[in-house]
Every structure is written in C-alpha cells, then in structure tokens.
C-alpha cells in the first residue's frame, strides 16, 4: 500500500494566557495511514479526538512531533510547514469535513459547493454542473440550489457542507462527526460517497458519535484514551 501519512509523537496543549495556565490535550500520538485506509478515532469526551483532527489540519499548532504527509509535491511535515504551503495543500489534497457550513452572505448553495472545484481550476460551468449533482445526491431540493444557505435550516446547511467538502477527491480527509443530526437519506448518501472516495484511494481519519454509521468502512481504530494510546484494533472488535 502507498503510505500517505506518518504521525510521530504528536503532542498538543493550549496556553491560556489570561488564566496563566496550560491545558494538556494529548501526548506522543503516533500512527500511520495508507492510501484508501479509514481510521476511526475513539476515546471519551475530552480525549482530544477533534483536537487531533484540527492539529493535523493545522488549525491548531502542535507542541511537538511530526505529521509527515506525502503530497504531490513530495513529503511535507504539516506540523512545522510554512503556512502558505499548508494553505496550498488544503486547497488540493487535504480536506476537513465537519457538520457545520461556513456560509457567506449572498453566495448561492451551488456556488459554495462548486468553490473547491473552481479553486482547483475547473471551468465555472463544469464546476456548477458537478455542484448541482452533488446537491442532488445529498438530498438538497433543486429550488434551493440558487438560494443563499445563510437562511437554510441546520440540516440543509449540513447537506450543502457535505456536498462541498466531498466534491473534490483528496488524498486525505479528516472527518469530524459529519453524520451528526443528518437524516437517513443524507447519511446513506454520505456513506456511499465516502466509500467511493475510499475505493479511489482517499485515506480518512474520522471521529463519529455513532460509528455504526460507517462500520463497514473502518479498517483500524486508534484509541486516544491515555492508557490505550498507540493501540490499534481491527474493525471487528467491539466499538
């Protein structure tokens, strides 16, 4: 298998200057990921699952360790890479999927979904066609495609967000509870899309409140509970 990611001794904590204290989140996390592999992060609330995803995406700065990502430009250590390189990798190879949409005023649902394709230099008409198809798959009604998602319900916004974040195949996808509060049809569409991306070689690291939703996609589990950190289990072990 082609190695995509090597996480080595990754450590994250926060310095809260106004309180004058330090908050430790996780220490010395190490695991690797191959192309097409799906790793589920497990652990109690506060174990640092979402924090780990955000640290890998570099929304959070790690305190120590390495995140060696095999990009199309060669190996890049996301833990200490230049901001501008990380920004570039995010546009093309590294995705982060949450349940929340960052809607912009006066930008239509189809334009928001088409944006990652446009950033990847896909022609406007083609990008919009693909965006409409993705909105259809996730169950967003056609009469909403040209509307502004700022006024949509939470559930509809979430569908727009999933259509947007999963429209462009990436090397690595970070999934932070994307199934939370989705209706059954949209959940099914999400799992189908994740399966297609996985089969196409996209590696994924996910946090799921209900892992049963993606049970058949999981290859390994990494438990972030401190005493179990580094443990890796097979997906047929009880979740």
């Amino acid at each position, binding site marked *: 298998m082609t190695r995509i990611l090597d996480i080595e001794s990754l450590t994250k904590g*926060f*310095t*809260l*200057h*106004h309180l004058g204290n330090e908050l430790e989140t996780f220490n010395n996390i190490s695991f690797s990921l191959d192309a097409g592999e799906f790793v589920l992060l497990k652990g109690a609330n506060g174990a640092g699952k979402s924090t780990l995803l*955000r640290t890998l995406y*570099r*929304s*959070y*700065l*790690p*305190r*120590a*360790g390495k995140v060696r990502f095999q*990009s199309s*430009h*060669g190996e*890049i*250590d996301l*833990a*200490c*890479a*230049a*901001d*501008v*390189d*990380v*920004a*570039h*990798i995010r546009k093309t190879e590294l995705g982060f999927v949450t349940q929340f949409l960052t809607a*912009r*005023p*006066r*930008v239509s649902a189809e334009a928001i979904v088409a*944006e990652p394709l*446009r*950033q990847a230099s896909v022609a406007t008409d083609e990008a919009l066609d693909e965006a409409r198809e993705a909105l259809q798959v996730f169950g967003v009604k056609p009469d909403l495609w040209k509307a502004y998602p700022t006024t949509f319900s939470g559930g509809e916004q979430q569908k727009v967000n999933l259509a947007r974040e999963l429209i462009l195949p990436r090397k690595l996808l970070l999934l932070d509870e994307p199934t939370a509060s989705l209706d059954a049809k949209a959940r099914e569409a999400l799992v189908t899309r994740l399966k297609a991306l996985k089969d196409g070689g996209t590696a994924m690291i996910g946090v799921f409140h209900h892992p049963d939703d993606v049970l058949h996609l999981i290859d390994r589990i990494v438990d972030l509970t401190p005493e179990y950190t580094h443990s890796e289990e097979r997906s047929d072990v009880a979740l």
Partner: protein
Amino acid sequence: MTLTLDAPRIITTKPLLRIENVSKSYGDVRAVRNVSAHAFPGEVLGIVGESGSGKSTLLRIMNLEELPEEGTYHLDMDNTPEAYSGNLFEMDRFARRMLCATRIGIVYQNPHLGLLMKHSSSGNVAERLLVAGERSFANLRAKAKDALDASEFPLERMDAPPAQLSGGMQQRVQLAKAIALEPALLLLDEPTTGLDVSVQALVLDTLKRLQQDRQITMVIVSHDLGVIRTLADRVMVMRRGEVVETGLSDQIFQDPQHPYTQQLVHAKL
C-alpha cells in the same frame, strides 16, 4: 510552547510582496518597528490590530505613499521591468508614482482619498487607464465599463459622480479604479468600515469573487475580525508597530498563541 514553523517552503517559494525590516516614525512616535511581511501570489493577507498598531501605516508604505527610515521592499511580478526590480524604496519619485498607478491598486476607507468626487465614476476609472497610456476614448470607456461591471457597479449609473452615490457604491468605484489595470497587488484599507451590514456583505462578496476569478494578491487591513476571517488566507497581528503573530487565518482565530492575539480574538462579539 509550540513548534517553530521552520520547514522550508516546498510549494510556494517566491513571495510576490517582500518587505523586510521596515521601520517608520512620526516625530517621537515609532509607528512601525522592524516589520517584515510576505504576501504570496494569489493569496489574501489580512492585517489586524487595535487602532494605532501601525497597520494602516504599513499599508501606505506598501503603496509607497510613505517611505520608511529603514527597510527594503520588493515586488516580484510577472515580467518585472528592470526599473522595479530593486528595492522599491530607493526608486525616484516618478518611478514610484508610475509603479503605484499601474501595478498596485488601493481602496481606502475614505473614498475622498481615492476618488475625485465631482468627476463621473467612469471618468475616475478612466483616469487610471490614462496614466497607463490609453488614449482612445472608445477604449477608455469600454475598459472603465468592464472594471465597473467586474466590481458589480450598476452600469446605468457609471456617469454619475461619486458625490451622488452611496458609500457602498463609492467603494465599488474605488475598487473598479484599483483593478482597471489588473494590478499585481491590491491593497484594501478598511474597505467596509462605515458601511451598513448588508452593503458590507455585498462588498465582501465582490472582493472574494474578484480574488477567486482573477487570483489577485491582496493585502487587507481591518479592525473587523469578521471581515478578515471571511477574506484572508493568512493573518498578521500587529500591536504597537510590531508584528506579534502570523498564521493561517483559522489558526489565528482558533488557536492564537500570543497573549495579545488571544485577547483580541476573545474580545470579538
């Protein structure tokens, strides 16, 4: 403590804008102290900080309106003419003016600084084209119209003077003037301050669209963190004339490192 971001750039190696060790004083007040800043092709660099932090002074230095006592400034543009290849602070006044008029666009918070308020809006845009050598009336009008259209200005009002337009419309005329010559660098000084919320959203959307469609490198100064968060890829935080922190936009807002940045982000409503 966090890791130092010391890995060499492997993808985007050459910044378009490179300012090194710039200092500027007004009398006894040191407005900008030993600031270095880079902006890379196609990115939006946001500069935030409280009033008096030096952010607008730095922007005026980037627009060569102010010259610092110390520092260097390079713009690495496509087909950079020989005259603009060295330290831009050392160019003569004429060359500086030509560079600003043709390769750098700016939108001021106060439209009076950027526009002739009693001339027509299309004339304001055409003035920029005239400086670059365009002399055909038909071409001037057509290009001014294109720039106003790209800035989402209502073309039926293109001959109205800015003095008769709303604040949002005046900002669009400034924007059209700034992009008319397809500048290498677009500078925005509090472009939405003073506009009501709905107009602010429209101007932000226009800027975002322009940036995506034309891949213009932008530097935007604002004390409005929402504006910076919406537009900027990277953010530079200034305090008392110095840069205290630089990072990806989401990192600055979600995991600020410097005590001042934490204070600034937590103070946002």
